[in-house]
């Protein structure tokens, strides 16, 4: 049976970037981008990825949306795609991306290859959520913080090829991140972790491009969790930050975990899930507390991205000495010599939290790493 490959191109992704608009989300902005002379970036990048798949052209069924949302790019590369759905040519919207992803999931495609930026990844996440549809992103947007994207368009094609050929079998929960574009254009960066999509993972092609072979992700996470649990002290409140790195701690303790929120435990028992800043402040009032966080979003942030509930007030009260940073070593390697970043929105707290952290990277293994 032929493998089914879904293709979605967000034709306007990346248009804001070249004209300095820091993103292309929102109709007004897109209009301004076009007025400033922006040219579409993503069709060309989608084609770079598709070219990698020409060798297995006869073995796959390519399903896509009409016109510039995939059909055009596929035909230009020599594919004969199955076209579904309807869009208004030249006037596609984020809702079309959501619709396309939903329709492709209905078609039970083996993989969705999509071109866009963080906004596009969010649209796809909105459409398919936790459904078991693997995706891989062709980076074409202005903002690429989400881990579902390959490092460049050709590598996206390569990952898709290897996955469809059965040569990549590993699927990882990969972060879908986005920043508030209105705030971003005003110079403030606030990012949010929206959720996780399932993406094929080949160390050599995804991380491997930067960092070579690494210890298996699962084994690293496992040994980090063992260390954290072994170190836990009685009667101390442990505040568990979001993400897939902290998840195994809660799993090993058989506790409910909020992937995108903040949980708290004491004496290895759950205190509460998905806490707000206010609830956290109430909990730590006059008590000894420690915070366990990981490096979020691949850029090196430990605070201020995806965990805003850990506000300056919370952090000030807990104190730097009670912050436990955990991460597999390859995340540090991928920073390429850059420090960890802290952006709580409060200058004083940022500077209080800066300096060296002894980061847990495995069982009885730590790395001294600087945060700024």
């Amino acid at each position: 049976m032929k493998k089914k490959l879904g293709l979605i191109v967000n034709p306007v992704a990346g248009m804001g970037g070249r004209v300095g608009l820091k993103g292309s989300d929102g109709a007004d902005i897109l209009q301004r981008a076009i007025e400033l002379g922006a040219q579409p970036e993503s069709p060309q990048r989608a084609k770079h990825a598709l070219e990698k798949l020409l060798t297995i052209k006869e073995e796959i069924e390519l399903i896509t949306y009409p016109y510039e949302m995939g059909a055009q790019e596929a035909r230009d590369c020599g594919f004969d795609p199955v076209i579904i759905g309807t869009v208004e040519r030249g006037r596609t919207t984020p809702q079309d991306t959501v619709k396309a992803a939903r329709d492709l999931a209905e078609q039970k495609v083996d993989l969705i290859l999509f071109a866009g930026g963080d906004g596009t990844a969010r649209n796809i996440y909105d459409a398919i959520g936790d459904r078991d549809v693997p995706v891989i992103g062709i980076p074409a947007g202005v903002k690429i913080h989400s881990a579902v994207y390959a490092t460049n368009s050709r590598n996206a094609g390569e990952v898709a090829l290897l996955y469809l050929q059965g040569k990549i079998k590993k699927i990882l929960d990969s972060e879908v991140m986005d920043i508030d574009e209105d705030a971003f254009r005003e110079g403030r960066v606030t990012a949010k972790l929206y959720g996780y999509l399932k993406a094929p993972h080949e160390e050599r092609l995804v991380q491997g491009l930067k960092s070579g072979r690494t210890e298996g992700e699962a084994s690293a996470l496992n040994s980090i969790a063992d260390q954290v649990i072994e170190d836990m002290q009685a009667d101390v409140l442990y505040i568990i930050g979001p993400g897939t790195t902290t998840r195994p701690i809660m799993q090993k303790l058989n506790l409910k975990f909020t992937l995108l929120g903040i949980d708290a435990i004491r004496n290895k028992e759950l205190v509460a899930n998905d806490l707000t800043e206010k609830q956290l402040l109430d909990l730590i009032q006059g008590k000894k507390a420690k915070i366990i966080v990981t490096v979020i979003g691949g850029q090196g942030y430990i605070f201020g991205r995806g965990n805003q509930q850990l506000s300056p007030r919370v952090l000030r009260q807990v104190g730097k000495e009670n912050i436990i940073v955990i991460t597999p070593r390859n995340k540090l390697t991928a920073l390429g010599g850059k420090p960890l970043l802290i952006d709580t929105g409060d200058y004083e707290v940022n500077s209080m939290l800066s300096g060296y952290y002894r980061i847990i990277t495995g069982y009885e293994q730590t790395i001294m790493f600087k945060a700024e």
Partner: protein
Amino acid sequence: MGKVKVRKGFQQARWNEPIIYEMSTPGQRAIYVPQPDEEVRAKAGDVLAGLPAGMRRKELPNLPELSQKHVLMHYLHLSQETMGSNICHDISEGTCTMKYNPRVNEELVAVPNFAELHPCQDEDTVQGILEIYYRFEQIIKEISGMSRVTFQPGGGNAAVYTAASTVRAYWESKGELDKRNEIITTIFSHPCDAAAPHTAGFKVITLYPDKNGFPDIEALKAAVSEHTAAIFMTNPEDIGLFNPRVEEFVKIVHSVGGLCFYDQANANAFLGVARARDAGFDMCHFNVHKTFGTPHGGSGPANGAFCCSEELTRFLPVPTVEFDGAKYYLDYDRPESIGKVRDFMGTAGVIVRAYAWTMMMGPDGLRECADASVINNNYMEKKMMEIPGLSSAFMGNGHRRQEQIRYSWEKLKADTGVGTNEINNRVVDYGLPHYWTSHHPWEIPEPMTLEPCETYSKDDIDEYVETMKIIAKEAYEQPEVLMAAPHKAASHKRNDEESLDNPEKWALTWKVYVKKHGNK
């Protein structure tokens, strides 16, 4: 100007040789052992009767069944499919110090008086080899500045493990082992400087480099505490940089009471120039098998010399080799010893070769070895830097590299899609061995680590650089050639990288392979 001879016409033998078990044919035999005569059989009786039941095999061993000629053919094929250090210029294997090993030393260890020694012989009958051990220890003491040396460890990692065990014994003797449970190392030290202490029961703290590529001294200050048992550091590190603040590192660790171990795997850079003890270190080691002119561990048996200060000699492995003025003897009466780290006395063949090499070189020769290897490397760096797409780790930090360099093909990869893995597959098409990238994960992107030891001539280096130039040019003009490389080599590409990383899949023996993958 010497002759630059790029081997464009190179073609390696390619047998696509199966695993010997795959060629096994039931019933085939290499040797039919003749049955003993009746008379012998009657006299000997049932020779196996005394063997305890638990030691008897219930099934025949699973050995491949082949004729003698096929066994010979198989191993000859395999030998032709290697790119060993004496077949080509092994400048490739950076950090491994693949210098030329004089053949005359092979003759020495083949002398029957030495080759037929047995480690269980009485001391009186092995005075010669004990004398060589004793004399070589005096030489290594002089080179390192340390008080005693043991040659028992079976390689570099084993010597580092000996150091970790010594640290453990030291803190145990003070009754502080519970508290002193952390060992600090650096990211560009050899990974055994983290692994060996971890195996010995210590928690490991790793320091990352500062912006110039040196171990971050501020990170060290933040890491040391009353829990610090020791620091284990390589210098020059594997990227080829010599830490100019090494004495400060030692002082900082000593200030909290910790011990200092100097991993001297990269000693080719400073033989006869700098001594570990003079910099304040309490312990150090040498990879005798590479630095002292004998084949590298991977292509011959290895030996690690572990050296320590007077204060730590009581912990040395047993036995030590002593001389009472008339006779050499083995001293087992060392109550505080960490015990044995290897059977018998380590790899004696390596000691004999190394002793011969060191005597041949003399003190000035050792210094010349270091000078030449550093000059070779700096010459090579200058030539290599003319290659488009190539850079090196922490390039332009104003510090000269020592005996090796970690290069980076990051720009070439960005420009052409061809990265270090592809180039590595291509160098063998020109008759050069596969080169060393770096340990994983790659802290330096698209790495390549080269070490033109003192035994390579300018012509050899020129040939190597010229080949790299040609390959880089190919990457820009015909990247598809590199993407499909190798074309002329025996080995094919690995098609399943995961088999190297995944404990569920990797197999070092046929038995394990069949267990994990089924008999296919």
